[in-house]
């Protein structure tokens, strides 16, 4: 089995209803994502998942010098940012891609699939 990071990418600027358009659509996406999470758990793929606060709440720390340097904002200033992720444990890439497609449909976002080199 291999661990994969399924990261959801979407616009950095979010309005009142995320990027879902309306309250109803946002609630539908949340419900679908919840159902997908339940399925991941039931089928044994689930490791961990979470949604992130907006990129504007991020802080960058560089601890390589003598004293850590702290900077406001995300590491990269881009129009599209990671908004949430799943960590799954799957037998191979085909299974991971299939789950990513389901997750993408549920949360209404594009999903990047990337294997872990190691997981503690």
């Amino acid at each position, binding site marked *: 089995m*291999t661990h*994969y990071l399924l990261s959801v990418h979407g616009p950095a600027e979010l309005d009142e209803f995320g990027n879902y358009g309306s309250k109803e659509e946002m609630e539908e996406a949340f419900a679908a994502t919840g159902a997908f999470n339940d399925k991941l758990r039931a089928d044994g793929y689930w490791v961990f998942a979470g949604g992130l606060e907006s990129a504007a709440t991020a802080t960058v720390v560089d601890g390589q010098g003598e004293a850590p340097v702290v900077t406001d904002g995300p590491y990269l200033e881009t129009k599209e940012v990671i908004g949430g992720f799943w960590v799954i444990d799957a*037998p*191979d*890439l*085909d299974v*991971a*891609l299939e789950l990513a497609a389901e997750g993408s449909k549920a949360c209404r976002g594009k999903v990047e*699939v*990337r*294997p872990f*080199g190691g997981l503690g």
Partner: protein
Amino acid sequence: MQGGTAAVERLFREEYGRLVASLVRRFADIDIAEEAAGEALVVALEKWPVSGVPPNPGGWLTTTAGNRAIDRIRREKQRDAKHLAALMYHDDTAYERTGAVEDDRLRLLFTCCHPALAPAARIALTLRLLGGLTVAEIAQAFLVPETTMAQRITRAKQKIAAAKVPYRVPENADLPERLGGVLAVLFLVFNEGYLATGDGDPVRADLTAEAIRLTRILRQLLPEEPEVAGLLGLQLLTEARRKARVRNGQLVPLGEQDRAGWDRALIAEGHDLVRECLAINRPGRYQILAAINAVHTDAPTASDTDWSQVVALYDRLTRLDPSPIVALNRAVAVAELDGPEVALTLVDRLPLPGYHAWHVARADMLRRLGRTAEAKEAYDAAIAATQNSAERAYLSRKRGELV
């Protein structure tokens, strides 16, 4: 059988895909498989010219390469659990030319053509691992420096290992779509051979032959799939005309080819395949293209061509694939059926100004309509856009003949 170096190398090339595929199954590692196959070749080159080719060369290579792979794994101390497991695994699969071992090549073909790999990498990996072409040969075929091609192949292999691209034939539900990816790779390899880019040979017979060889293997493995039969038929009916296609370094268009130079055996085999597809009655893109080529190769002279049949087949293809390229090819057939004026109207609407065949079609139609100044411009644009030396030579002659 003669055991000279050239004979050994030819045999090895024929056996390469089968050998590597069985080693990948056994050791679950493409690098180990390739290295062990290479070492087995070195041993064969030493032994066979002296002691003769063994009665079952494929079995001999499989055993020798398998032993080399185990030696290598033993030598290297820090092996992870996967390799230790492979060492413990006793391979009791008997070597056979058909059956389970054949499926290894099919598995490997689906791995090489996986949609998660970049299209250029799929072609390169297929030629390397199943065709047994060297990295240098593949680099030369696709006009990129050898280091670039080596990097492309290495990256793809790293992704296969790290992301765990599976080594298996997809489930039935996914098979049609994934098979489409494999067929697309084999079609591209063939096309690159048939109309080579760059200033080298205008036709690369090694690439067309390799594409046909791999498609024949795929057909053996999936005899029930009409699109596989269709692609093979299309390749054979095209390959049949290869020798008549270039004369004195110039491309000879279909209508002007010496049909006595066509390969009758390939045409007969291609027509059989097209008939087989018609009987199965599950049409697809490659089957329709094969049928179009069957119409062309059925005509004793160019003027005997049943153009209404060709246009009807392009109409069917348009329903499956409404792309501007299909529309362009259909318009070329319409020019023969309804005249160049009707066809030019169709061509002018297509958004293909970067595609050399669009300029070629316009130039030909404008020439036939006597619109010489416009035809010259179209020929110039076609010459600038084409990368094939024989096609450029042909277009330059046609342009020169305009007064």
